[in-house]
Structures are given as C-alpha cells and as structure tokens.
C-alpha cells in the first residue's frame, strides 16, 4: 500500500489555475486529476491511493464550504486544502473547523501549497493505514467466541485472570486458556498490546 502513487485532486473552474497547479504538482512527482466542479469530481471512480483535494472556495454551482460538508456527509474523509481569491476570517474558521488541512489565499506561495499538499497526503496515508489496521483488528475480533470476547474486555480493563474467573464464574485454568486464545487470535504479543488494540477498537466505536 505504501507504494501506491498519491493523487492530488484539483477542483477549480479557472483553467489557468488548474493547468498551473498541475504543472507545479508534477514537479513533486505527484499524480494530478483536474476537475472543473465538485459535481464532476463526485462522478469519478474513487481511487485507492493516498489523496488530497485542492479546492477553490467560490465554485460555480456550490460553494467550496458546502462541498466540504457534502464530502463529510458522504463519509469521504479525503483531506481538503482550500485555495481562495479572498478569504474572510469567518470563512477560514469555518473551513478549518470542518477539518481543512490548510486555507491558502491567492496569490499563494507555491512552496506553502506544496508543503500543505505533502502534509495532507501524509495525513491521508496515515489515516488509510490506521483504517486498514482497524479493519484487520476488527476482522480478528469477529473470530473470538463470546466467552473469549468477555475475557478480552475484562483483561483490557485491567483485571487479573483470578479476578476474571471470579467475575464470570469459571475456573482460573479455563480463564487462562481463553486468555491465551484471545492473545493468539488478536495477534497481541503482550497485555499492553492487547490494551492498545481494545483502545483502538473503542476509538472506532467498537465495544469489545
């Protein structure tokens, strides 16, 4: 996955800006896709690669800020860099609160834009890796029996095998067997790692 060529999406209705950005991004060996409007972008087939969007705030049809909200609603978490002709503070705050990576005003500095793009792509790569990790852990969680899952939850909450045996009313030996199974299935090499995995699941809304 780390070998995937990152993609930068440029959405701007001005052909000069689109072409100039394409040229600039190619100097950083980035793959570029150009779109005139958000609608055009939404019609495209999603690419499986780290990605970021450079977006003009005042776009025909819908404003860039509306588009950002629309993306969030659709579950698209691609990082967005705003590029605008004239930004006011309210607009900037709104965009940054909604999770924009950067808010640049035209005329922008090329270096600032490139840095923002590289940062956004790193963020996206990290997010994709973490998404992948969560997906893997979640898959493994599904392989646990209800009893093993119970043991995992209590162990991650800091209970000793003895305490767990008391809580669920089985023998110590049985708990130890379950615990070993949990560690093997979840690919946790230590209790600390098991706690971290449980935490990761919890952070992604999954109760063990």
């Amino acid at each position, binding site marked *: 996955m780390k070998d995937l060529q990152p993609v930068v999406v440029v959405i701007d209705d001005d052909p*000069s800006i689109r*072409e100039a950005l394409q*040229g*600039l991004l190619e*100097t950083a060996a980035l793959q570029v896709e150009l779109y005139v409007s958000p609608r055009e972008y939404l019609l495209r087939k999603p690419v499986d690669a780290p990605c970021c969007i450079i977006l003009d705030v*005042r776009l*025909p049809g819908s404003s860039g800020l509306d588009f950002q909200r629309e993306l969030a609603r659709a579950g698209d978490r691609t990082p967005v860099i705003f590029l605008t*002709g004239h930004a006011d503070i309210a607009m900037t705050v709104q965009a940054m609160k909604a999770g924009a990576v950067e808010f640049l005003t*035209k005329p922008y500095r*090329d270096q600032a834009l490139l840095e923002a793009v590289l940062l956004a792509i790193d963020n996206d790569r990290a997010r994709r890796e973490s998404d992948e990790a969560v997906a893997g852990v979640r898959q493994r969680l599904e392989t646990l029996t209800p009893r093993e899952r119970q043991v995992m939850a209590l162990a991650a909450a800091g209970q000793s095998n003895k305490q767990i045996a008391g809580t669920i009313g089985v023998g110590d030996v049985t708990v130890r067997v379950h615990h070993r199974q949990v560690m093997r299935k979840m690919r946790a090499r230590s209790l600390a790692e098991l706690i971290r995995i449980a935490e990761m699941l919890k952070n992604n809304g999954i109760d063990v």
Partner: protein
Amino acid sequence: VTTEDNEDRLLRSVALQNAESIRVARQRAEQQAEAALRERANLLNLTHDSIFVHGINGAIRYWNRGAEELYGWTAEEVVGRIAYDLLKTVFPASLEQIEAEVMRADRWEGELVHTKKDGSQVVVASRWSLQRDEQGTPAAILETNNDITERKRAEAEARESERALRKAQADLARTTRLTTMGELTASIAHEIVQPLSAVNTNVNTCLHWLEDEKFDLAKARSAATRAAKDADRAIEIIKRVRALMTKSEIQKVELNMSDILSEVLALTDHELRARQVSVNSELAATLPPVLGDRVQLQQLMLNLIMNGIEAMATVAGRPRKLTIEMRAEDTDHVLAVVRDSGLGLDPEKADQIFTPFFTTKPEGTGMGLAICRSIVEAHNGRIWASPGTPHGSVFQFTLPTKAVGTS
C-alpha cells in the same frame, strides 16, 4: 465761286444738323440709360441686403442703402475707394484664389468678415457676380452681403452649450462608472489575481525544470508558454479596467453588442458568482453591428447588470437569474433584453426609474439607469422597463444598426 460757297454752306448746315441730332439722340440715350440705372439702383436700395459694385481693381463704383446701413459709410464716402482695404476684408481663402474662381465661374459664394466704420466686425454671407462688357472682358463685380453675425453667434453658443452638456454628461457617466468600478474593486482584484497566481506558479515550475539535476527543456518550455498566456490574460483585464476608467472623448466606431457583453461579463464574472447570480446569455447567431462608443456601451451593459444583481440581493427561495438576450429587432435595430429574478418593478414607476436621482434602493445613487438612458439616447436608441413574469424586471433597449446610424 458763289455756287461753290452755297454748296459748302449747305453741306456744313447738314453736317451741323446731323451732329446736333446725333448729340440729341446720344443725350436722350444717355438720359434713358441713366434713368434705367437709377431705377435699378433704386430697386437695389429697396433690399435690406447690402450690395455694392467694385471694379476688377477693387475700386467701389456703387454702394446701396443696405450697404450704408450695414457698414456705416455713405455712398459718397466710399465710391472710388478699394473695397478690401476699406472693409479690411478677411477672406476664407486668398484673394487671388477667389478672384480666379470668379473669373472662371463668373460667381463666388462664401463667408467674409468685414470691419464697419465704427470698427466693429460683421460676418457676412457674400455672393459675388462678375459683370462683363460687350467684348466679354471682366468689368465689375457685384457683391451681395447678408449679415449673419447673429446667426453665427447663436450657432456658436448652441455648439458651446451642447458641448458643455455633453461634457457634463460624460463627466457624470465617468463618475458613476468609477463608483461602480469602486464597488467592483474586490472582484476585479480577484480577476487579476487568478492569472497572476498562475503566472507565478508557472514561472516557478519552469525554473524547477531548468535546474541542472532535473533539467527537462520540454516541460520548462510548456510552463513558460502557460505563464506567457496567463500574463496576457492579466494584461487584457487591466486594459479593460483602464478603458473604463479613462476619460476619453466619445468615439463612435463599428462594434458588435455581443463583444461588449462578453467584455463586461469578464469584469463582472466574479461579482456575479460572489452574489450567487447565474447568467444566461441568449445571443442571436448573427447580430448586425452598431455604431457606438465602446466605453459608453460597456457602461450601459455594466449598469444594467449591476442593477440586476442589486435587484436580486435580497431574493431568497428562488434562483438569482440574469438572462441577457440580444437579437436583431428589425432590419434597422438591435434589441437587448436584460431580465432579472429580483424584487420586480412597480408598473406605475416604470418610466420614473430612468429619471436622475430616482432610486428604490437604500444605497442607490439613482444615477445608474439615468445614465443608461442618456447613453442609449445619445446613440439614437430607446430604453424601457417592464415587470417580469412571474417576478423580476425586464430592461430593454434598442440601438440603430450601423447601416442606419451612418445614413
């Protein structure tokens, strides 16, 4: 001898008688001629035109009552004097040229300036006729002069006040234009920033590909080409803005209203987007050219578009739409229609809105539409407004096509 004497006497007597009768006849003829001349001179005295006759050398021979009244000299005072010296005549061309014309065509017409006895000047419409003797040799020139000083002054005054009015209108139009441009500053800045940003990026991209370790001439060249194109675009925008800002004399040239529209839309593009107004242009495939002042017609379209934008500023719940149509209304006129989906127009006030200082907008100057009308009328066109259906207003104007405007 006696006989000879008698014959001689007789002959002498006959000769005398003949001489006498010739003398009498000549006298009678002279009297008749003089009477005829006097009669003609009296007739000439009846006219209010000033008439005088001078010889080819310029010496005055006849001077009518009209001339006495106009110039202040009596006939006795001027007969024998050289007309051009007496009247300090100012000719529109050299005297030689005028005399040559008179000799060729037997007549000449033109405007002269004469100085009167009291020293004041008079402008006359002068008509010269050449008189020739029996042999056809030029003998005298008859000059008929009409005082047109008053008419000339009135004409000059009319021209001056017309010029002053035009200037006032142009100054006002320019002021309003500058005000409108002031309102558009942010948008225009954006229009210029777009291509300049692109120039900057393209130049940096070009420099990147020129570095030793990354050298790629094709890519550098393509970036430089883009930069040049974008710089041209920025220059075009600045030129348009400058054309609207400058104070220039009205210059009517052959132009196409669809070009005017696209020039104005290029300047208002960002403003329209910022105010979330969509523009729909419906232009006839072939639009006959009109004869007009580019800047004024740009301002006309600019004012109408800004008027539409402002009329829709408070509109919510329906799209803000500006529709601009242009087509040939008939063989002689181009028709332009600007529809908005704004608050609309009180039909009773449809005529008033073109009056200076009439406004329905809290921050309106009331000059925008008044200037539209003055521009349209200066181009011999017509402008009117009506309520739109189901809402909004419709502004329409016609301009004569070039073919009509020139005739």
